[in-house]
């Protein structure tokens, strides 16, 4: 009221003009600030899961190359997807950015390279050492577009103290797993922590089970799917989903998994309130942070069947990085990628994110908790993460949604898998 009485129209316009001028100056300041910060710096954006390894590689490279500088930022996977796709669409993507191996997501190597948004890395020396089985994760039309330090194992991260309290050992068959869960539950420990409110968590238990229920019997299941000769709803996926629900019906998950987040589930295992969580080894650093001692945690392959020979494991190439096709500093970035592909750097990065290095001269140096998985790799009983061979970006989010519906009792296994089949048959 006082303002209205004392401020004339002319004065108001003057004030507005002043405010506009301040705004303009502020905008100028912002622009110059950002341009100076990016001057000579490589802009790098990654997801939280890769921070430990990527930051280490960049720091080491900078130490050895005084003319190299970078501007690094991280964000959760969902946010990166939104922000990066907008930048890619606008033609102002960072020089180096996160990319998911294979196909199956809007930020995957196959989808982005098809849109000519990634730099071809095929002439880099490390690309010659990509194991044949992993080439599909790195290459599209025979050209390599992504660097990844290696493969992450998917299994159960367990709390050794909780297991000791219940007097149980890591199980090797499905029946043993149920018995272990029963004993943990009897001791008041949540057998399996599940944070299904966080969408990507919903897929982990099916991913842990289908290598045993699908791929051990039909190793070429993905090829049959592509050829239209197989479907989710008429395959071992039914068995895997039934087993998922069996775990829920027996009360082996924490109460209300659909309302529980990944962070809450991580904390449950870290503190020993829960016995285990089905997870990728790449998130071990987060679990260790949540635990009083990192040594409290171990990992074991999550058994899907009662036939030990059929218990294959999921082992997928971990999230990697690529160079934007529009980067003006592509030469610098390519040199950094060449450095990342060298055995020592690769090994250090892989160790930092608890994964098995892409290649190694001799015995691979891995985090000790991954040792139970190595025989499976040797015997070719590891299957890439399922989404990496799905033909479009719609199957994976459909999988997330139908699992939440299953856990919420809103759909049946058959209907859920039919929805995934429908999403699979849509064009890329």
């Amino acid at each position, binding site marked *: 009221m006082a303002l209205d009485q004392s401020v004339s129209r002319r004065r108001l316009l003057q004030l507005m003009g002043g405010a506009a001028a301040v705004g303009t100056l502020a905008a100028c300041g912002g622009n110059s600030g950002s341009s100076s910060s990016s001057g000579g710096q490589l802009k790098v954006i990654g997801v939280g899961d890769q921070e430990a390894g990527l930051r280490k590689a960049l720091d080491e490279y900078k130490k050895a190359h005084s003319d190299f500088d970078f501007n690094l930022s991280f964000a959760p996977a969902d946010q990166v997807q939104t922000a990066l796709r907008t930048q890619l669409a606008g033609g102002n993507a960072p020089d180096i950015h996160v990319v998911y191996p294979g196909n199956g997501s809007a930020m995957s190597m196959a989808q982005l390279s*098809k849109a000519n948004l990634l730099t071809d890395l095929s002439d880099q020396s490390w690309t010659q050492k990509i194991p044949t089985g992993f080439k599909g994760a790195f290459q599209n039309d025979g050209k390599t577009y992504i660097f990844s330090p290696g493969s992450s194992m998917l299994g159960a991260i367990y709390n050794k103290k909780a297991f000791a309290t219940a007097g149980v050992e890591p199980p090797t068959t499905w029946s043993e797993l149920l018995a272990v869960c029963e004993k943990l539950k009897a001791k008041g420990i949540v057998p399996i922590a599940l944070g299904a409110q966080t969408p990507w968590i919903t897929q982990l238990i099916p991913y842990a089970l289908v290598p045993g229920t699908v791929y051990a019997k039909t190793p070429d299941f993905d090829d049959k799917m592509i050829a239209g000769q197989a479907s989710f709803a008429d395959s071992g996926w039914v068995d895997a989903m039934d087993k998922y629900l069996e775990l829920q019906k027996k009360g082996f998950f924490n109460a209300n998994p659909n309302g529980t987040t990944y962070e809450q589930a991580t904390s449950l295992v870290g503190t020993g309130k829960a016995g285990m969580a089905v997870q990728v080894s790449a998130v071990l650093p987060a679990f260790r942070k949540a635990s009083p001692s990192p040594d409290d945690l171990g990992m074991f392959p999550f058994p899907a069947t009662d036939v030990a020979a059929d218990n294959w494991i999921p082992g997928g190439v971990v999230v990697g990085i690529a160079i934007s096709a529009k980067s003006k500093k592509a030469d610098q970035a390519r040199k950094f990628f060449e450095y990342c592909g060298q055995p020592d750097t690769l090994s250090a990065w892989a160790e930092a994110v608890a994964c098995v290095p892409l290649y190694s001269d001799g015995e691979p140096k891995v985090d000790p908790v991954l040792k139970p998985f190595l025989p499976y790799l040797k015997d070719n009983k590891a299957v890439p993460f399922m989404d990496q061979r799905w033909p479009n970006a719609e199957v994976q989010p459909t999988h997330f949604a139908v699992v939440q519906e299953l856990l919420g009792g809103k759909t049946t296994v058959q209907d859920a898998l039919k929805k995934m089949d429908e999403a699979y048959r849509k064009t890329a």
Partner: protein
Amino acid sequence: MTTVTAAVGRGAAKATRRRGGIAPPWYFAAPALIVYALVMLYPAIAGAGSAFTDWSGVGDQRSFVGLENFKQLFSDDQAIGALRNTLFLTVAIVVVQNGIGLLLALGVHTTIKSRMALRVVFFAPVVVSPVMVSFLWKYVYNPAPDAGLNAALNAIGLGSLRQDWLGNPSLAIWSVAFTVIWQCAGYSMVIFLAGLEGVPQELHESAMVDGAGTVARFRHITWPLLAPAVTINVMLSTVGGLTLFTQIIAMTNGGPGYATDTLSTVLYKQAFVYGKFGYSTAVALVLAIFVAAVSFIQIGYLRSRETTA
């Protein structure tokens, strides 16, 4: 009260001056119009073309697909489910938020001593960012028995009412609606309050002399004269409900499953998660036309009600 009365008085004075020929020249609006055209209109019109293509949102590859995206939209279970959720949320928000807003306004439009403090308290959630409010309520809705709302229910002996507030597909949409209403009821209250301040006291006094009770005075004096405030509140909450996005993404991401997806979250997911920018734009276009149509119909009806009042 003084402030609003003075504002009404100023408005009347301004209108008189305008009638006297001192209306500001149209080009005073030009800077704002130019910015609006560049930032809102141009991108909206330029983007609308994508609705007729199969563009993925990145790269240059796109081909014209005619009305294919629109055909798909009307047979897409996810979009139809989202439309149902959107309408449910809109009706819940319009009715409950405005109902509570009106009650709050009537409550603080009295002579009780703490009325100013109460106005601030009820309006406070409005000034907090919706993302912050969503995270706060996500904490309150923690499904663990010893956390948030469940712990509070336990503490007062109502442990049997504990729920998985956001994880239960049948309950999640109610939880989201409650959060939105909790945050925005204060906004409706302020608009109703401004309307109440404009109701002449003499009308109430003469009605009292005629023996009219509280209910009769509200029905025959206050309610008809609140018509402009009702118009604004209903319009704003309808548009807010139809385009609800932030609270959903921050609290449930449309889940569990598709239980809380709205048209806005579907168009976001189609663009950024599924990589179907063309289809997403078609959803956006239909949503924009739908919101505009509903708004025009509403404003037509509510304005006519104002005239008769």
